[in-house]
């Protein structure tokens, strides 16, 4: 069975984000970009399923600028088989991403989509659920454990208050949470091998999907800064200040 893993190129999670003075967005010039961390987890899970013999092919797809090829190569070096890059120079909104993924799925017919729960730039937490809706497939979001058997998957999900286990019939969309696995680092030989793997180059127009923005960003601003605090000597002073100065005890 085939698994599709959508991966997004985002600002590296370690980078301190700076808002541009003209309020048009955040400064992405010369900052380190990486694969969205949740998508690394999704890729890892797909590759593990392949190593277990449950899955025969792992296809990764990214929608983004030409440099998103590097993101796809990272996934290929982790063990994915081939990639599809749909280039777009403008930011593609979650609904349009879901529509493009649906179009890819119409061509590829995977039995399972494993993707991240959230991109750490837009913090949307939307594409997986949207894709499931457009396909009319069941969804299992925020997965911390996936077991595939036959034509269904048992998925344990992180929910408020604890964990929930669902059984979803395949095909289905599963989104990865942090505790699903710990992604591997690609070995040098695998990085070399990945260079030879195929990446198909496409554009949104190839799929006939309208990617024009429906949400207009009026401005991007810095959040209010917290005023600096003080250091106190010990617990007794802390309790005193919390009672008298802060009034929270």
């Amino acid at each position, binding site marked *: 069975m085939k698994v599709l893993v959508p991966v997004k190129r985002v600002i590296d999670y370690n980078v301190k984000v700076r808002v541009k003075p003209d309020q048009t967005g955040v400064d992405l010039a010369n900052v380190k970009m990486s694969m969205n961390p949740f998508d690394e987890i999704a890729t890892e899970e797909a590759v593990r399923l392949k190593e277990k013999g449950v899955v025969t092919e792992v296809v990764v797809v990214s929608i983004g600028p030409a440099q998103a090829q590097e993101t796809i190569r990272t996934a290929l070096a982790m063990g994915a088989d081939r990639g599809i890059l749909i280039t777009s120079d403008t930011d593609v909104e979650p609904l349009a991403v879901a529509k493009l993924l649906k179009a890819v799925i119409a061509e590829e017919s995977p039995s399972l989509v494993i993707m991240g729960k959230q991109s750490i730039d837009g913090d949307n937490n*939307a594409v997986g659920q*949207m894709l499931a809706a457009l396909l009319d497939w069941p969804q299992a979001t925020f997965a911390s454990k996936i077991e595939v058997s036959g034509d269904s998957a048992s998925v344990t999900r992180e929910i408020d208050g604890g964990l929930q*286990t669902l059984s979803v019939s395949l095909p289905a969309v599963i989104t990865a949470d942090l505790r699903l696995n710990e992604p591997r680092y690609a070995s040098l030989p695998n990085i070399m091998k990945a260079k030879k793997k195929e990446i198909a180059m496409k554009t949104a127009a190839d799929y006939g999907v309208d990617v024009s923005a429906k949400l207009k960003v009026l401005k991007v601003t*810095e959040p209010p800064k917290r005023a600096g605090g003080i250091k106190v000597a010990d617990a007794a002073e802390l309790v005193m*200040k919390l009672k008298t100065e802060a009034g929270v005890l």
Partner: protein
Amino acid sequence: MAVLVIADHDNTIVRDTTAKTITAAMSLSPDVDVLVCGSGAQAAADAAGKLAGVRKVLLAESDALGHQLAEAVTDVVFALAPGYDAILTPATSSGKNFSPRIAAKLDVNQITDVIEVVSADTFVRPIYAGNALETVQSSDAKKVITIRPTAFKPVGDGGSAAVEKVGGGTAGAREATFVSEEVVKSDRPELAGAKIVVSGGRALGSAEEFHKVIEPLADKLGAAVGASRAAVDAGYAPNDYQVGQTGKVVAPDLYIAIGISGAIQHLAGMKDSKVIVAINKDADAPIFQVADYGIVGDYKVVVPELMTALG
């Protein structure tokens, strides 16, 4: 213009997150209905009707809805959607699960995690782990929005809305079925709405230590317990204790961070707290940059002293 608020509830009571989302809804329109999707949820529906300003309560019940399965909730809401211009859901893990599915069915984008309603089509939301705020204007005919509850005050009681039953909520039951749930019932306040939160980080080193140090302090303060991702990943605390960009967002009156460094992903979940206290042995830990009161020291010494000082 009418607004539908999808309630966060446990079949018996409606959570505070619902009352806060109603406040956001009221700034869009005075005509606010609340939908309760559940199973055996009449009590929750009655409770929703008592919230101030609610026009009417819609109650949909089925087994699948009892577990808030996204396919089933979407089925109910899709049928009701023609009557509404906006559909608001509190951004809880359950709301985050089903709301984008509803949006896609309606062929609109979701506006995630709204912290301010500027006008009927313009909203402010955090991006990049809260390091930037984006003001977006939506040209979609219907607005599907998740609301960050900590950014809004709850409406009070005093309503007397009638409860009306609605159908649906079975689609998808065939494809996604509930198997089991491990939900820990605790006497402590719920993390998302607590007045005081005590959180522990990687420094705690073990689940036993987390138990022994963080929980008694929380209980003394009547606080909820939170944790950093590192503490959750290491198994010191359950997953739903995680505070941060990809966990829970909290804004209590008092947040006490113990042995937490203050990574941006953690700060994203707590930096809107009224007062922040940090206990960390590293004077340069970034958590001190957001803390109102910091104690540089070993938690093994400071927390027992704090227990004593609290009496």
